[in-house]
């Protein structure tokens, strides 16, 4: 059965098709859940039964709310399923006790029960106490941010995927659905432009 047919039958509440759907995409959902749990460092702390519960809950919610009807086309089904699994897993873990690392204290929380207003945040020295270096680094980061923001959206996205998300050009080309050569051009142009602007900034500062 093709993915289109399967999707259509599942939307029409066909039990047999739904069983096929689970069989076909069970491993993908399981892998997505495992990936997310590993990423938020709760995989080791979570009992095996609970892990199965998450996978089961994902499929159950999709079936009960007929969420498959929202999927745009069969081509985006797998991506949609992975995204749903990732979101549901992080939502599931958000309220659980093992999602919070031990020995973690909030900066905002009061340190002493009887004395409100004394928090760790109030004890940390403010940025205004710091020296010129702090001001310079802030200025530099703002300049860098504004330069990146001034790039066109394609260059910006390619650069951010490359620099912030540490993706290779091959991956970026697949994510953005553009040829690899185009990605190379976009990234190199963006980097060159930002570099030029930063060099101008340093030259200006050295002259002062």
């Amino acid at each position: 059965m093709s993915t289109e047919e399967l999707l259509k039958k599942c939307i029409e509440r066909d039990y047999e098709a739904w069983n096929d759907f689970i069989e076909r995409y069970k491993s993908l959902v399981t892998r997505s859940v495992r990936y997310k749990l590993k990423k938020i460092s709760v995989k080791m702390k979570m009992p095996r039964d609970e892990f199965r519960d998450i996978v089961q809950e994902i499929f159950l919610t999709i079936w009960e709310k007929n969420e498959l009807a929202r999927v745009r086309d069969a081509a985006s089904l797998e991506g949609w399923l992975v995204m749903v699994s990732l979101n549901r897993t992080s939502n599931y873990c958000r309220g659980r006790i093992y999602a919070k690392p031990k020995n973690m204290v909030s900066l905002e929380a009061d340190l002493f029960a009887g004395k409100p207003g004394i928090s760790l945040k109030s004890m940390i020295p403010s940025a205004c106490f710091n020296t010129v270096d702090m001001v310079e680094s802030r200025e530099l980061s703002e300049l860098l941010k504004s330069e990146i923001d001034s790039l066109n959206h394609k260059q910006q996205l390619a650069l951010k995927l490359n620099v912030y998300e540490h993706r290779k050009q091959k991956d970026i080309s697949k994510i953005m659905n553009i040829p690899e050569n185009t990605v190379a051009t976009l990234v190199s142009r963006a980097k060159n432009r930002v570099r030029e602007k930063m060099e101008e900034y340093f030259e200006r500062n050295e002259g002062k």
Partner: protein
Amino acid sequence: MKNRICPSIEVLSGYLAGSLAGDEKIAMERHLTGCPRCRQLLVETYEIMSSRGIHKRCKKWLDLAVKNRWFMGAQAALILSFFFPAYFVQFLTACFLMGCKWIIDAKTTKMLIMIHEAWKRGEKTELDKELSGFKHFMF
């Protein structure tokens, strides 16, 4: 917390699948430049889906290896027999046995055995019947 202007995951998955076009695609790219949360979700999804491809390829090779395990074992025994001359005969025997097992297990061999048995019993296959009818018609 989800950003109010974030697109739905249907649109995001559509972007990854390459099914968005025109203004919708541009709007999506503009959003992705400014939303680290959506960008991260997109990258994570891509990572899982690309690892699935690797899994599939690995499984394919593993299946092939399991299917031809006796043949590979026979080959390995043959190669090892040259590297360890002291156990040459033992390795050669292992190679022979595994080779025999591979031949017996092969689908074509099983089929040939079944055909041979049927032929010995004198059974006529469907094809034989059809051919005999055709011969009768012709001659």
